[in-house]
């Protein structure tokens, strides 16, 4: 892996995923599969200690706890696809892969609206998905250009 690829993956993929995961681990209700998995792996005491240490998110708006993690997930997936398809000519397949983050995020929300997917529809979640996907495309495309220019010695 070239040196510039790792920082890209860390900043645009790993960090958003970790930040979203941190919000879930610390402040979301523990009736989620992830907590069952962590319990099965023996991490329950560590998670409980972390939740107790960070306490309640101080005066955090609801979107911080519910919409932001989804947005970070969409951002990271879109950025990963932008990374995988960097340099490839635009084609319907490339557009499809670049859209997967938004498609899954928005699809899940619309599924909730139609009562196909569990959970309650929230228009803010939908908006955050759109912003996250757009932000990932804008931020990563400029970064890609920078890497490509540098690799060409410009």
């Amino acid at each position, binding site marked *: 892996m070239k040196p510039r690829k790792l920082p890209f993956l860390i900043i645009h993929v790993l960090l958003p*995923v970790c930040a979203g*995961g941190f919000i*879930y681990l*610390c*402040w*979301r*209700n*523990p*009736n*989620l*599969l*992830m*907590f*069952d*998995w962590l319990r099965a792996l023996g991490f*329950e005491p560590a998670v*409980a200690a972390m*939740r*107790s240490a960070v*306490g*309640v*998110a101080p005066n955090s*708006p*609801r979107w911080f*706890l*519910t919409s932001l*993690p989804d947005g970070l*997930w969409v951002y*990271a*997936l879109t950025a*990963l*696809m932008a990374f*995988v*398809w960097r340099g*490839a000519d635009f084609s319907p*397949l490339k557009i499809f*892969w670049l859209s*997967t*983050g938004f498609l*899954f995020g928005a699809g*899940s929300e619309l599924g909730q609206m139609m009562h196909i997917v*569990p*959970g*309650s529809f929230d228009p803010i979640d939908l908006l955050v998905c759109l912003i996250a996907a757009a932000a990932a495309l804008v931020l990563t495309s400029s970064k890609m250009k920078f890497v490509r220019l540098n690799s060409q010695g410009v």
Partner: protein
Amino acid sequence: MNHFRNHLFSIAGVGIFLLLAMATAPTNNNNSNNRPSPPANTTMFTNSSTGLTGDLAENYVDFTISYPNTWKLDPAAGRGSSPNFMKVQNLTSDGITIEQLAIGYFSGQRILMANLARKLSDQFEGQFPDYQKITEGTTQVGPYDGYEFRFTATTKTTAGAPLDIYGRAILLPGDANRKGATLLMMATSESKDVKSISDVGEKGELPILLNSFRFGKD
């Protein structure tokens, strides 16, 4: 060939991200849409507006819930100035609470749940010694989406022995046809099964009650 590799990486990437998304799905513990059959050795409580006065009468909500026969129904709930339609407790032979559930009304809108949960938490802070809210967020009870917070506190038994409290308050919003409800669950260190806030409504006997809760004719 290069695009073939891109497709492979894309499929793997999407797979990993879907696994991450799956991890945030609710467990099936309290998730059934169907009205469950009353479990064995339980009594079904059906809320009734008969005899209710004041706020309880004004915010009356139809619901049913089953509780183990060994639990005691508090006769004071649903009367006078009680904020609850019903309250049931599992007590030790010394009368110390092991687990309890109280159900009151919630007349707020879905969008205000987080704010109202915080107000309720502030109210508890003045009632319980060493009160500490630990988590808050969305939750699900049977087919109903709600908002909850979990807390710890301490108290003393009538004999003066210290008792840890693990609490969980759930707000279930109403809709055009009915009011919502608040479910306040508490367990104490007298419980053999509940050892932390994560266990409230998950271990012990409270899950029997939580899984059986249904509004009106649902």
